[in-house]
């Protein structure tokens, strides 16, 4: 008797599941830019949690228990990879999540860390990080790879949404293509000799390779190490020797130092660039496309004059 009743109950509860409102696919992205890609592909079918929010520095983020909880509850976890999120492996292990872990940069030809990273003091942080430059999204061509990787992963986790994911992806890729053309056209307008800037954080190696603006950084590619007097002196010499016309601040590094360098060299101070994180909704770069446009406008304003 009892067993029959149990079977009945089990059958009823199984029957009840499809009757519920279609549950959103819960998805985690490690940082804001990746989160924006995921949002554009997933649209309304996903419930997205972004671990490192706007203006946060994912290099040195410290995860919270809430992050582990989000991870454990999610079906797909998107990470940048290439050593960008040094903390993610531990977090995944600690959370015990069974989610599909997706490295969004898979298939991208990763750049080795550029020269100028041989300061000595920047060694030994994180091994992956010393080998590859993780800031791949700074080239729109790479952003398109991110987006297709995200599409494939979402379809795998939620086959029912295949058509919607594909439609979203096609529309978004078209916008990225337009963005790519826009950037190339704007940079073509800047005289070739003036296409060099200095930023306080070298996250633009992919941008440089794709679009041909030269970036010189006073600090290593990671924001983990503090600039020494030697670093600052070298960068000032470099600006003077190479006649670099503009200095840019960065939303995750000390603006006072960049300003000092600009005062000392007569280079122009450009506005804030967004490289590793989006701004919040009120800021100038709430989405990836806005971010790239915003940075482009900053370069053009500082370098054209």
């Amino acid at each position, binding site marked *: 008797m009892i067993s029959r009743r149990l079977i009945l109950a089990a059958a009823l509860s199984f029957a009840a599941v499809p009757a519920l409102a279609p549950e959103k696919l819960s998805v985690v992205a490690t940082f804001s830019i990746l989160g924006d890609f995921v949002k554009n592909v997933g649209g309304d079918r996903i419930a997205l949690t972004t671990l490192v929010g706007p*203006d946060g520095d994912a290099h040195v983020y410290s995860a919270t228990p809430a992050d582990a909880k989000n991870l454990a509850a999610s079906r797909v976890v998107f990470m940048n990879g290439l050593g960008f999120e040094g903390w993610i492996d531990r977090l995944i292990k600690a959370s015990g999540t069974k989610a599909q872990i997706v490295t969004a940069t898979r298939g991208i030809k990763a750049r080795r860390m550029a020269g100028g990273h041989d300061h000595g003091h920047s060694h030994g942080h994180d091994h992956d990080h010393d080998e590859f430059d993780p800031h791949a999204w700074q080239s729109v061509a790479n952003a398109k790879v991110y987006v297709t990787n995200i599409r494939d992963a979402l379809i795998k986790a939620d086959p029912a949404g295949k058509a919607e994911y594909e439609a979203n992806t096609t529309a978004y890729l078209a916008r990225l293509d337009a963005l790519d053309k826009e950037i190339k056209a704007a940079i073509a307008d800047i005289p070739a000799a003036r296409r060099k800037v200095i930023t306080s954080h070298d996250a633009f190696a992919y941008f440089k390779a794709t679009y041909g603006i030269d970036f010189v950084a006073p600090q290593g590619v990671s924001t983990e190490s503090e*600039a*020494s007097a030697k670093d600052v*002196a070298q960068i000032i010499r470099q600006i003077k020797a190479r006649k670099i016309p503009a200095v840019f601040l960065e939303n995750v590094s000390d603006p006072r*130092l960049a300003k000092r360098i600009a005062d000392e060299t007569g280079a122009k101070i450009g506005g804030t660039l967004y490289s590793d994180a989006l701004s919040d909704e009120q800021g100038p770069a709430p989405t990836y496309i806005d971010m790239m446009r915003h940075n482009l406008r900053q370069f053009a304003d500082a370098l054209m004059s």
Partner: protein
Amino acid sequence: MYDIFIAPFAEFEFMRRALVGMLALSFGAAPIGVFLMLRRMSLTGDAMAHAILPGAALGFLVAGFDLFAMTVGGVIAGFAVAISAGVVARVTQLKEDASLAAFYLVSLALGVLIVSMRGSNIDLLHVLFGSVLALDNATLVLLASFATVTLLVLALTWRPLVLECVDPGFLRSVSKTGGPAHIAFLALVVLNLVGGFHALGTLLAVGIMMLPAIAARFWATDLTRMIVLSVLFAFVSGYAGLLVSYHLAAPSGPAIILAAGSIYGVSLAFGHVGGLRRRFVPGRHLEA
């Protein structure tokens, strides 16, 4: 020689500015450190340095890396903690050091929390460790005025301050100036810690205050000489630390404090007032 010791400052303005900033800090902070040490308040300085953090952090929260906001916030928070620790010590069972410890731990936690609310961890690093390489005109003027005020107030309150170091009971019996002088002194401590905070950050600011003072103790018994020496030691630490940071690519704040630490180490070993060498290799007795 020129290349090692002078060229960095001749070639780069930011090095000159850092050096001038350290000079101003030396004149203000080091004498204060001597008095703190003589009054057995060395660790009070440390506690107050942490107490500044939430105020400076609130300034940062409101206005970013804004000199005025962070200075005002730091000064207010420093005073608040100094005064409330004093009040708690007077009206409750707690000793002043215990209440200071309680206040500063809370302040430190609060400060870190506030900075993290607005900025990234990198901002937090800059608040905790300062940016001596990025001193602009306004900051230099601020540091210089703090030093000036410090020296003036020290000159005005010199006698009661010295007496209170030596014999507070006697001071209380002959004069009523002890109380106001003590408050003025606490104000100077806060002021110099806030100044040091701009250059070296909250965690290291107290280093340039205490280490030269403690080192000077090994070389002089006379207060005036002790203060002159402490200023000298502080400035030499700043100079040496900047050179190390320039030639060896070390972060500048810690390099400066380590230079001060080295001076302390040498003084500890060789100082002729109570240093180790005197203890183990006594000088010859004077004979008639």
